[in-house]
């Protein structure tokens, strides 16, 4: 009597029915290259790769960087959709390269890979994230309490109160939403969806006491009122946060506070 483990090992030796001998297909990666030390303009560069379509775009970029052209520059850290380093514009849509499978984005056509829009490109797929983080810092993304003494116990919160802002705690600050926002593309002064999402996370936190202050910051000319509800941010969010809804909730909080 064979154990299940041995059965599995036997089966692994034979190709599954319906599959070719090699799982690899040829994919063209069309990467937006920019190197300010070589040329003032960005150009497209094509790379032909033999790759398993069940692999991710990030694996393709690794193949290029490690085996083909070591000068290709991009950010990635955890490579598992948590750190938010590798947001890029893949086939015209902001995604995380580490969460995008090649088979899901039509590998028969060249896969275009560009840096996210609205931020200054430093090299290849690396952009200057400073304006993005500046907007993030501006909304005070930390717990503020008025008490001056050290707390002597935990700050309790009911599950319902926690649920109120659960969606916006998922943000990984990858900038996929902010760099998909056409209002942010214009002059970059708009706070952007990500900053508003992170303000939302504290505005609706029952333990926080600076909600009023954050609402005042977002009541600014470049605050929530510049949102045009185009839903680009919601579509782009790799964490599935309902970004536009969060922005609308901040707007509603501002209005009900006033009137």
């Amino acid at each position: 009597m064979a154990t299940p483990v041995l059965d599995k090992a036997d089966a692994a030796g034979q190709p599954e029915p319906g599959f070719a001998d090699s799982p690899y297909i040829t994919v063209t990666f069309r990467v937006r290259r920019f190197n300010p030390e070589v040329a003032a303009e960005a150009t497209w560069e094509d790379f032909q790769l033999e790759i398993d379509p069940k692999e991710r775009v990030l694996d393709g970029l690794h193949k290029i960087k490690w085996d083909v052209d070591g000068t290709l520059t991009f950010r990635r850290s955890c490579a598992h959709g948590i750190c938010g380093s590798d947001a890029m514009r893949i086939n015209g849509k902001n995604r995380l390269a580490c969460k995008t499978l090649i088979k899901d984005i039509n590998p028969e056509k060249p896969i275009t890979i560009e840096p996210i829009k609205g931020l200054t490109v430093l090299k290849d797929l690396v952009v200057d994230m400073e304006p993005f983080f500046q907007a993030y810092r501006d909304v005070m993304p930390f717990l503020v309490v008025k008490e001056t003494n050290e707390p002597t116990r935990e700050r309790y919160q009911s599950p319902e109160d926690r649920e109120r802002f659960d969606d916006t705690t998922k943000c990984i600050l990858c900038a996929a939403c902010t760099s998909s926002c056409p209002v942010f593309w214009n002059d970059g002064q708009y706070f952007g969806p990500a900053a508003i999402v992170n303000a939302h996370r504290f505005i609706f936190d029952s333990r926080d006491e600076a909600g009023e202050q954050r609402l005042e910051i977002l009541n600014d000319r470049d605050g929530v009122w510049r949102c045009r509800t185009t839903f680009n941010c919601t579509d782009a969010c790799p964490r599935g946060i309902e970004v536009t809804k969060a922005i609308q909730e901040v707007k509603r909080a501002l209005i009900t506070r006033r009137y």
Partner: protein
Amino acid sequence: MSTTETTASGVGPVEGAPVYTVDNPAPLIEAPRKRTKKSPKSTRGNFELAAWLFMRLSGIVLVVLVLGHLLIQLVLDGGVSKIGFAFVAGRWASPFWQVWDLLMLWLAMLHGANGLRTIINDYAERPNSRLWLKGLLYTATVFTILLGTLVIFTFDPNIR
């Protein structure tokens, strides 16, 4: 393929000959979206909130006003062929229609002007083009509102 020593500028042979060297450095790329002294100051006040709310409320009111206006002018009682000086004079004899048209004029002009202001803010990138476009917009808005209001209130049905 270049065999010269190019590692100093960090450019490999894959990318071709380097344009810039240590002695001839690449121009510094100024981050265009950096918050500097020139970037707009943050505003305290509820103008944007009020403008946003006004757009929603005036929009609802305008649906009634404009559809009613179109119905009366173009559909009911003979349609567009009945419109003439006498028809307008007859309607403006009643304060109700005067107020209707006045409200429609003001709301439509302010609603449209605010919408265009938003579009200018979103699409005009340079502060100067913003200034001029908005100046033109505000001038046209004020002129149209004042002229329209003047006509509604000083309309003389016996004019020759």
